[in-house]
């Protein structure tokens, strides 16, 4: 049908792609291989090792970052798919003067971790969970935070931290 009309726009496959991503408020330009995930690129090229590589298949959530304000698994996003977007990692959460974000403070105050490996993902997911309006009660928080696994099983403390931070942010 349209095939013959569209030859001009048939995309050309490339093995390297130039990208420009706003990471924690700063524009970062880079050339990446298409198979580089946003997670690997952030950790290994940009030097932001906050987002962790847990399962590398979208099952654990510790790679969670915000892309244009929405939480996503960095391991299931290609770096090229971050082109032109705003990416926020846990490193970009605190104020430049070092004051912690309310969610970070709540995690400290509620002792919402043991080993800490899942914490960057939990915190980024919690920031989104609160802004989405899914932090009104314990059951809702547990449902909407279920994509972040905590092997130490600090779920009661994490839930308490999300509720406390939501209370502070929405006050």
């Amino acid at each position, binding site marked *: 049908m349209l095939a013959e009309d569209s030859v001009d726009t*048939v*995309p050309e496959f490339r093995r390297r792609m130039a990208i420009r991503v706003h990471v924690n408020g700063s524009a970062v330009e880079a050339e990446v291989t298409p198979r580089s995930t946003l997670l690997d690129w952030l950790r290994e090229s940009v030097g932001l090792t906050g987002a962790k590589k847990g399962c590398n298949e*979208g099952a654990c*959530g510790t790679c969670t970052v915000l892309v244009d304000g929405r939480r*996503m698994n960095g391991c299931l*996003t290609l770096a090229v798919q971050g082109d032109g977007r705003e990416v926020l990692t846990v490193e970009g959460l605190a104020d430049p003067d070092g004051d912690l974000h309310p969610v970070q403070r709540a995690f400290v105050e509620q002792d919402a971790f043991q080993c800490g490996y899942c914490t960057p993902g939990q915190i980024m997911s919690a920031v989104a*969970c609160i802004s989405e309006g899914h932090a009104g009660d314990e059951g809702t928080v547990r449902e909407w935070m279920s994509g972040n696994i905590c092997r130490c099983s600090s779920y009661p403390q994490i839930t308490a931290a999300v509720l406390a931070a939501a209370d502070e942010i929405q006050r």
Partner: protein
Amino acid sequence: MKDFGYARSIDVASTVTALSRGGAAVIAGGTELLNWFRLGISDDDSVIDIGDIGELRGISQYGDELFIGALATLNDVESHPAVNSGAAALASACRQAASAQLRNRATLGGNVLQRSRCPYFRAEQPLPWGCNKRSAGSGCSSLAGQHERQAIFGWTEDCVAVQPSDPAVALAALDARVDVTGPAGGRSIPMTDFHLTQQEAVGSGNPQRENRLEPGELIIGYRLALRPGQGQAYVKVRERASYEYAIVSAAATVRSEGGVIREARVALGSVAQKPWRLGDIEPELVGLALDRDALMPVIDRAMSAARPLPNNGFKTVLAGRAAARALLLAGGAA
């Protein structure tokens, strides 16, 4: 992950042209494809990113009909007012699928193309066991191995896997159609016919086949009739309260008067390699009271056609009860 070439597509037509040349996979959310590349399930040399094609993104209402573009994410669908009022089973199915962050990437177009969660299938190559879906003729390790979560309808000795999609079950119950386009033009496929059981695949001449997409074809979106006057429900039975695949699921729509069913649709999930619509018994449900004891004998007749494996007979019981619960919830009686 394997290396691959990448191109960003700007329109459907050029995507179809590029796909028809072969060797390229479509990427949108990437929640399946990237894991296929990691495990060796896909070995396509290049990917076409359709994420920027605006015409595939929206959710639009035309009178009583809803069109959901293939690029709508599961969170877009679950939060959409028209979906929640007129296709509530679909909203619920999307909400109960995956996790919040996965639902921000996963699209409704890709969701129905996800493949089995069978642990023998989803292993990194080289596989230490047989799997006919990974290597034709290597055997099905699940048949004689772990198969508690596998099919009770439509399987063959070559493969006993189920289609794990939640939204597909709701779409099947809602009589949704899948709009596709390809080198030969556009067409529309009922959701209930989109996937094939293993038995149907053998009948089609290609036992590997899992859906009716032809090479070069692309899902454009879904069309369904909104039914705001009907109760709807999606029941997902699983081992965790959240973020877990279904053991079985059921989607139902019910129009009732005075506690009596006037119209009903019901489909089961995770019992076959396709959503399993209980179309044969839907007429028999009409006139029945919205009462478990009234529904179960009719549902049990449909479930008597099940052919469970040695260790998954419990799914026949569970699926029948899930169907009853979905009907009762949809009818406001549970």
